[in-house]
Structure formats: C-alpha cells, structure tokens
C-alpha cells in the first residue's frame, strides 16, 4: 500500500472509532439521557411528539427496544445525512447550526495560536540547541516550568494583571458586542484585539514542549556525520544550522505536531471558558451543563473530525519533507 493510501486508511479507521465511541458512550454509562432530554425539551416548550423522542433515541439509545445493530445503523444513517439532532439548550436550533456558528472562532484562535507557538518554539529550540553552552540554555527550564503551570490559572492571573489591572486587553468575549459580526474592518479589528490575550496564553503554555523537543533533537542531529560533512564543506554556520541540522531535527516535531493538536484543542476548551470566547469549546461546556446530549455528541464528533483532518494534512505534508517515509512501507 502506498504511503498516502495507508495514511488515509488509518484516519478512516480512527474516524470510525470516534463515531463508534460516540455511539457507545451514552449507552454504556449510567443514567437515562433520553428522559432527561425530553424533560428539558418540555420545559423549553418544545414538542414532545413521538418523532422527537425517536430522534433522540437513535442518538442515545432506546433502552433495549431495538437491537444494538439496528440502533447503530440508524445512527450511522443520520450521521451520513449530516443530521446531528436538535439542540435543547439552544432550542429550536439544530445542532449543526450551533456548531457552524461557533466553529470558525475556535479554528482561527486555536489554529493561529498553535502555529505561532510551533514556529516560535521550534525556531528557538533550534537556536538553543545550536548555541549550546551559552546563556540560551536557561530558556529550557524556564519554558518547561511554564508548561507545568495549570493553564487556566496562568490565564486568569494574566487576565487579572493585564486586563483588569492595566486595562491593555478586554476582559472577555470574542468581539465588541456593539458591532455586527461581518467582514467589516471594525469587526475584524475588534476580533483581533479580543483574541490577542487568549492566543498569548495558549502560546505561553505550549511553547515549552516544542522548544525542549526541538532542542534535544538538535543536540542529537549536531553530532551526526552529515553535519560534520557540512562543516568540512566550509558552508556558513547559518546554512549548516538550518539546512543540515535543523532540517533533520525538525522531523519529529512535525510528526508530533499532529499528535499535539488533540492537546491543543483540549486546551482551547479551557481557554474559551476563561475568556468566555464564543467558540465551540464554550458551547461544549454549555451543552454539558444543560444536559444537551445531542449538542455534546455533535461537538465531540466535529472536534474529532477536525483534529483527524488536521492530522491527515500534517502527515501528508510529512511525506513531502522526508522522502524516506514515502518509500518505507512499514509502521504507521
């Protein structure tokens, strides 16, 4: 099997696992989600006709009326049609609409912050590894300490200092609420202004991992023969560092980028809670607090698909930067 085909197959398998987990979890855990949902729906003045109940049962389990296989097929069928059910907490909005409205916020915030953190961390890590034995070494323990700090604690303290104390940044939210969301410069500026501190906290707490990993790989790469050869060739120091040492040392970090995305998305849920950011993470929490199981599951699925998709893209890019992986047909 070719490299690309194997990667796609793996992510299809992972997607299937996630979808199935999503199906199994509400059925295995205690409690009766369908009854809770129906009660909620009634409170909100929603229809309690049998059709609504049946839709939720397809999602969360019928309590033994239909066989497992029947339920599973019906569930997969709904997913394929893009039907994730109706949200209770945002009744009568459909789950897919709720997600559609909040997902872009998260993707832009988390995507940009992660990219900045990766580029900065890997760049600094390469430099720290290359200039080993200088004062730059002290960056390693400093940034590692930052990673050991509970993220939300750091973020809240920064908010207290920079937003409440100094007033440099807004306290919370994704944009100035007096503005209408759209592509106007005022709105985009406001979104950027509101996103800066959340992004900064994400970068601060995640940069240490990249830096340490890259620095350690850099130290190993520098003792490789091809770096010695490059030096013997009389190449300039920066060329040896970038084209030979860092170019090889970065490979595990790129491979690790895919895996870390899961952690990043996890972190963003907390970020959004801290900053009351209008993204998908705060919607997930809102769903949990309101027992909005349909929304909960829909968001979990979308997050998983987003992470898997990003992973796939990174893996395919990896094949481009390391020719050896394309030619090897073992190990996933």
């Amino acid at each position, binding site marked *: 099997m070719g490299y690309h085909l194997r990667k796609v197959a793996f992510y299809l398998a992972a997607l299937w696992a996630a979808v199935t*987990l999503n199906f199994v*979890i509400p059925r295995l855990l205690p409690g009766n989600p369908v009854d809770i949902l129906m009660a909620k729906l009634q409170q909100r003045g929603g229809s309690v006709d049998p059709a609504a109940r049946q839709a939720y049962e397809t999602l969360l389990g019928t309590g033994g009326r239909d066989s497992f296989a029947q339920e599973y097929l019906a569930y997969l069928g709904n997913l394929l049609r893009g039907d994730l059910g109706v949200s209770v907490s945002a009744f009568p909005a459909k789950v897919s609409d709720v997600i559609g409205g909040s997902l872009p916020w998260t993707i832009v915030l988390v995507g940009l912050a992660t990219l900045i953190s990766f580029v900065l961390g890997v760049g600094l890590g390469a430099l720290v590894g290359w200039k080993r034995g200088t004062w730059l070494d002290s960056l390693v323990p400093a940034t590692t300490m930052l990673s050991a700090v509970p993220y*939300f604690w750091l973020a*809240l303290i920064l908010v207290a200092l920079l937003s409440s104390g100094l007033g440099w940044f807004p306290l919370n939210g994704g944009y100035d609420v007096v503005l209408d969301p759209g592509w106007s410069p005022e709105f985009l500026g406001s979104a950027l202004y509101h996103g800066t501190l959340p992004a900064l906290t994400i970068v601060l707490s995640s940069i240490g991992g990249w830096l340490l990993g890259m620095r350690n790989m850099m130290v190993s790469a520098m003792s490789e023969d091809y770096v010695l050869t*490059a030096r013997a060739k009389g190449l300039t120091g920066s060329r040896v560092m970038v084209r030979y040492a860092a170019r*090889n040392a970065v490979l595990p970090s790129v491979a690790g980028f895919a895996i870390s995305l899961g*952690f990043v998305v996890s972190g963003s849920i907390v970020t959004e*809670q801290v900053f009351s950011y209008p993204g998908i993470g705060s919607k*997930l929490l809102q769903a949990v607090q309101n027992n909005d199981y349909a929304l909960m599951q829909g968001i979990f699925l979308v997050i998983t698909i987003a992470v898997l998709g990003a992973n796939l893209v990174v893996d395919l890019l990896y094949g481009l930067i390391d*020719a050896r992986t394309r030619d090897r047909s073992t190990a996933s």
Partner: protein
Amino acid sequence: MTWSGKLRAGLGLAGLIVLFGLVGPLLTGDPATIRDIGLTPPGHGHLLGTTIIGQDVLAQLTHATRGSLWIGVLVGVMATVLSAIFGIVGAYAGGVVDEAFSLFSNVMLVIPGLPLVIVIAGFVPADQRGTWTISLVLAITGWAAAARVLRAQTLSLRNRDYVAAARVSGEKTWRVICVEILPNLLPILASQFVFAVVLAILSEAGLSFLGLGAADSSTLGTMLYYAQNGFALQREAWWWFVPPGLVIALFGGALSLVNFSIDEIINPALRERIRRRSDVVATTPVVEAVDEDAVLTVSDLNVVYQGVTPVHAVKNVSLTLRRGEILGLAGESGCGKTTLAYAINRLHRPPAEVTSGSVVFDGVDVLALGPEELREFRWVRLSMVFQGAMNSLNPVTPIRAQLQDVLRTHRPSLSTSDREARCAEVLRLVGVDPARLGSYPHELSGGMRQRVMIAMALLLEPQVMIMDEPTTALDVLVQREILNEIKRLRDELRFAVVFITHDLPLLLELSDRIAVMREGEVVEYATAEEMYLRPQHPYTRQLLASFPSLTGERGALIR
C-alpha cells in the same frame, strides 16, 4: 546544574510537596470549618488567610494537595500499566497482535482527550462522579503516547542478542519480558509514570475548574474552582487563588526536573556540558618549510581531549604531504588517526583541543586562520571523504542540493546552469549517471553513495583530499572499484591524498608513503616500498602479519 544536581533538586522539591500533602492535613485542622472572618488576608491566626466563608486556606491547601496527589498516583499507575500492556506486550508478540495494538494506540492518540473526557464526564451524573471514575477516565484517555514510545523501545530491545538468546533457549514469554526486557525499560517507564502523574494532576485541575471534577473529594482543582467562583481575583484575594496553582506548578516543575535528569541518563549526549572555548589553545611558531614540494606540513602536533582525565590523542605528530602524493595513515581503531585528520582541518570539537604544534598548508598557517578564513579554506583547498557515506549525506535532501551547496557558497558567481553542469561533470568523473542528481541518499547503493561523496570532494578541485576509511563499510568488490577510481582520479587531476585506514597491506599497494600510528604517536614513517621490504618497528610487523589483505596473499609474506 549537573544532572545529579537536577535530580536532587527535583526529588527534594517533589518530596517536600508530597510530605506537605501527607502530613499537612494532620496538623492544620478541619478545612471545612466556616468562620465569620471571610477573606482575611494572611496573618497570625491564618497563615494563608481565609476563603470567602472564612475557611482556613492553609488547611484547605493541605487537604487539596493530598487529594490531587492521590488522583495523580492513581492515574499514573493505571496509565503506566495500560501503556505497558499495549506497548510492550504488543511489540514483543509481534505480528497481528502488534499491528492491532499499535493501531489501537494510534487511534486513541489522535482522538482528542479532553473533549472525550468532558463527554464521558457529562454523561455520568454528578453524584456518581467520584475520584475513581475521574481517575479511570483520565487513565483511559492518557496512556497512548507512552505506549508508542514503549513499543519503539521494546522493538529495538527484542532484537538484541541477549533477548534472542533467552528466547532461543526456551524461556517462557512472561519471563523474557519480566527479566530481560522490563529492567531495560525502567528508566523510560519511570519517566512515563512521572509524566502521567503531572498530566493527571493538571487534567484533573482543568476538569474541576470546568465544574466536571470528582464530587466526593477536594483537590487543588476544586479549590481553584471555588476560588474562581468566589471571584477571588476580582476581590484581590490572591492568597486564595494563587497557592493552589503554585503548588501544582512547583510539583510539575519539580517532576520535570526529575524527567530532565532521566532524559540525560538515557541520552548521555544531552548531559555533557560543552565549554565554549577555542579549538586551538596554543601553536608552535611556524618554521619555514624545508621541503619545497610539500603541500601540507604537520609539525609536532598535539591534540588533547580535555576531561576529568585528559586523553592525549595525538602526540607530537609530524608529517609531510607532497603535491600529488598519496600518504597512507595506518593504525588500529582509537589510535588517533581520525582525530589527527580532523585537527588538520580544525574539525575537531570540544572537548578536543590542539595544545601545540603547527599545520601549514601551502604556506598558510591553518591553526592561525580566523573563523571566516577557515571556512573559506575548507573544501576549496582541502576536502574530505568520510567513513560511512550513508551518514555523511543529508538524508532529507536530494544529492543535487548537497553538491550545489558547495558551489553556491564557494563559487557564488556561477550561474544556475553552470552549477548544474559542474555537478553533472563530477558525477560523470566518478562513474555515476548524472540523472542520479535528483536522488535521495537512501535511494543509492553504498558504493554509489561513496562515489557521490568523492565527486563532492572533487567539486572545487582541491589540492588535498583527506579520506577517512572511505571503503571500510563496503564489500570487497566495490572497495576495489573505488580504490581504482581514486588512483585514476589522482593520476588525472594531480591532487594529494591522505588515506586513513586500519588495513596496512592495502596502503602498501596504494600509497607513496605510509605513517603507522599507535596510541597517538607515529611509530614508523617511510615509503611504501621501504615499509614493505624492511618494516622497522615491531608494531608495523605485527600489523602486516595480522591483516589478510584485499588480495589475500600479501599479508602472508610478512613474518
């Protein structure tokens, strides 16, 4: 700080925090007692002040530390056991089991953890969300990364000789795993455990902060949750909000110090401190070369590896290389011949230092060159072919880029097409099809890679080429081809060669003159003919007798 210093500091700090969590609750009283002195700043009665309803923060902190540590250890143990099962057993069993386990680990790894935890925690009613449930969920979502590392390690251990021997001798599988494999994985398991504990404490804090923590226990996370919901920061009650986070940060920091030192135990390359100082400590004034024909003159060169016990790797070596000559440098592994070769080009790295002597290259005092002059000198005047071409070529770029790099740096005026033409020309010189320029090193055979290295060394038409065991890693036939190639190129292009090998009979055939090195010293230095007919030093005779030569007959002639 040395690695043992880090280990001590980390263990000490972590130990203090554990002690705080274990003993603290016995000394500080009931954390739940409500008093009417809400939000009292730290002072006499209450060392860390009180919460909004007058509970003692210090008492809460000790109990919460205990709760967090307990969850950390629970998750740490469970996650480590899970990763060991999926990583070690799978890799050891191999075949379908390994494929399945590895697929499962990888799938678990890419499914984002916290959203899954939140969904699971969301379905479990709050009153049933206990410490054990939360720990189990955190363990289930947190073992996969460690399993991957363990699998890779086990795979490499599995193929080691002693493990193979144990298996062949019929030992039971569980015994091989427990006795032969596990002990070697201990440092990694320990590091994974430490990592899992920190991650668990952080995750639990995050969950509790989100209001999804364990209902039945007090942890640092729940403490922060209450502090946040009591608007501790907005009321400037920092003594309520800061300490729990600080305890987590200190504990995490301490354990990452421990992990640093474990890393350094596993990978000594990370450990050694490199002192940044000059590669040349002292040189002897250059005396005018006596030999007009000499292109490279090494006089009284000394190289020392500075360490706790300095190793004198090259002792008072003097050599002369004439234009177009092949000088053989022979000796067993570790005799200092490679160190000597590197020192000539100043490629040696700390802790190696040139402590005295001189290297003169065609009138240029190499040891006195500044960094930029040295860089311009390298490859233009003197190029090198290293042992093991597989590792000398950059694995991630095509060979075209690696050849062109040289021209781009040293001949910046060359046009793109001229560069390409020159690269093709040198490849043709060494008998490699120029169509191979687009190939990556792993796509070439061993012999072809070595030819590419020689082509690269020819690019700038240097006066001298140092070849460090260029044929050792190749099979005998390819070795013969390459040697013939070198001789032919030397005759055509008239460069001089320093040829380093442990194979003295080979040198007798190839070189004009030969230096035999032993323990850093040149013990015999003569023409090849002289050395073949009348070896003077007993060590030379020993060397000649002990090697079966390429042709298989010459070594036998010497006794």
